[in-house]
């Protein structure tokens, strides 16, 4: 059962994905979760993989991602009553992950590169033949804002408007950056329309 009300990413079996909610509306799920421990627990269970995944791909650090996701889930639990439905629950949750991640960085005063695994720091694109490392390297090489946009737009399948809302950017700015990301990706690994 998907608990988001729009743009659920295709499910890989581990996330709260898929638009199908049967006959249960998002509003009734939220209303139930606000007053019922079991429903709240279930809602958080369904959101946890999505929240952790985004936190992980933003922070690229297991422990930090767990700390961020834990705080986000706490906030979702305690602040769900303030969700007004102005945006999709997806957008509301992603915005919370993004803000918590920013706060986390501010508090920790860490720089991104300090947290990277050694294997990623030392590898060049040519050396990173492993697909996973290759794409992690792509994420590493992009400027931070572009990386966040890449994660939100493509990994979480959000629209430009939703990304703009979460990132506090204009839609035009996000579109421009998406195009810049595309050019960057193309220069790195597109040949004849295929991703290497």
């Amino acid at each position, binding site marked *: 059962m998907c608990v988001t009300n729009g743009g659920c990413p295709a499910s890989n079996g581990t996330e709260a994905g898929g638009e199908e909610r049967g006959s249960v509306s998002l509003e009734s799920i939220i209303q139930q979760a606000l*007053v019922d421990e079991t429903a709240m627990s279930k809602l958080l269970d369904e959101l946890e993989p999505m929240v952790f995944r985004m936190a992980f791909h933003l922070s690229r650090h*297991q422990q930090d991602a767990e700390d961020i996701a834990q705080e986000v889930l706490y906030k979702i*639990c305690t602040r769900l009553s303030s969700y007004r439905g102005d945006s999709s629950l997806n957008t509301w949750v992603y915005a919370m992950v993004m803000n918590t991640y920013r706060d986390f960085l501010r508090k920790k005063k860490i720089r991104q590169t300090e947290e990277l695994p050694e294997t990623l720091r030392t590898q060049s694109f040519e050396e990173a033949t492993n*697909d996973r490392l290759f794409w992690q390297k792509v994420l590493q090489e992009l400027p931070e804002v572009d990386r966040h946009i890449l*994660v939100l737009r493509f990994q979480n399948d959000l629209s430009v408007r939703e990304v703009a809302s979460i990132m506090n950017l204009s839609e035009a700015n996000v*579109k421009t950056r998406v195009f810049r990301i595309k050019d960057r990706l193309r220069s790195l690994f597109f040949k004849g329309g295929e991703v290497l």
Partner: protein
Amino acid sequence: MNCQDIQAALWGGEEHDLIRAHLRDCLACQNEREAVRQVTEKLRALDTPAPTRSLKPSPDVIRMTIRRNRRLRWMKKMSYVAAAVIVIAGVGVGTMMQGKKQAASPGPSVQQQGTVDVQVVEGLSEEKKMALTALQRDLQVQTDARAIKKVVLQDFVKDSLAPGSQVSGTVTLSVELQPGAAPGNFTNGQQTGYAIVDLASSGNAVLFFDREYAAKTPEAALNYFFMAQKMRNGHIEYAASTLARQTQWKSEYETVHWRIGDSNPLVYDTEILGTTPNGADAQDYDVALLRKTPEGVTDRQHFNVSVQKGTDGVWRISKYAFYRTRQSTVADVPDGPRLNDGVVKWVTTSGIPAVKVRLASDVVQNGAVNAMFSQYAGSDAKLLKSENVHEPIGDCTLITAERALPNGDTQKEYWLTLFVPESGNNKRVDAYSLVGQVTGSEEEAKNDFLEVAKTWQFQP
């Protein structure tokens, strides 16, 4: 729309009829759509490791949040009722003057009818007052006014648990039930409960009573143990335990600087490996808790769990100890009594050759032997002597103990214990113990015990 517009739209996540129509005939834009699809797929396929612990707020936080939400709804509802009363009164003025007298002297308010009279005694410290005021708000909403007439919150003794947004402690309160109401969680008169107050969420609080987890059967008590482990809920563990175990529980949490409800590596399944009746009013279980390690491998934690029936007929967790099989082995040690007098009978229940108990390092530095022994040996065993001995496996502690048997006799025991720092965690050490019962000459048994222990192997 030209190709550039179409491709910009594709990268922006748009795909409407106009774009679809264009894509049917344009190979370049079809390739671009394929590139977008591949980027999306590859990014989604990037490995995301599984969390190593539960990330959800603790059940206590969820419970308190739900209570707060209900309270907010109730207050909102009450404000609507109040507004309705005002509107009705407003309409009535000038049109129903005969109702004025009734409006001026209303009966009990809706709030008075719907809530319990909960009071906090005067003269308490600010900290106690704050905790009890939070509880007061909670009880006013949560308790049933049809069953409970009045609650007076008298005292709050905070546990000296690690500082954090939650404080917890024992609450003393007196309760007056409504005439004829049957006792439930509350009974008439003075009683104690356990409260957790969340300072981070404007003083939300929750009150528990031990009797909320009153198990009628040993299996039910064991299930509370499983529930506490699965939910990492310190309170369930506390409430479902005997008084002695509760005291120990608090001490353990303080030692490792845990707060109630802290998350722990997630236990996702449980197994009962064996059951051993221990008299009419006690039962011992060998159980396994399954959790995922950071590497994603299933880790089995084995526990000896004892439950016992109290004089009130309730089964409670009286003891549990952690052990791990296949990490410590005694080679070539047969089960059962050895052939000669004065040798050791190895205690190897369920094929477990050695007991492993996990302790915090500051416990080790401050009386580890006593801590380990009291945690595992049980209340019927008394530590007589401990001495340092050197074995090939390392420097160990040899404990001589005496156990009181049900028939009134006593049984001498040796406990040979090795403390090993836990890998990757400098806050804890593992204590491995070999346990032997003396069946003859104590001195010969000791020599035999130490000799056989030379074959003790440790496989980290």
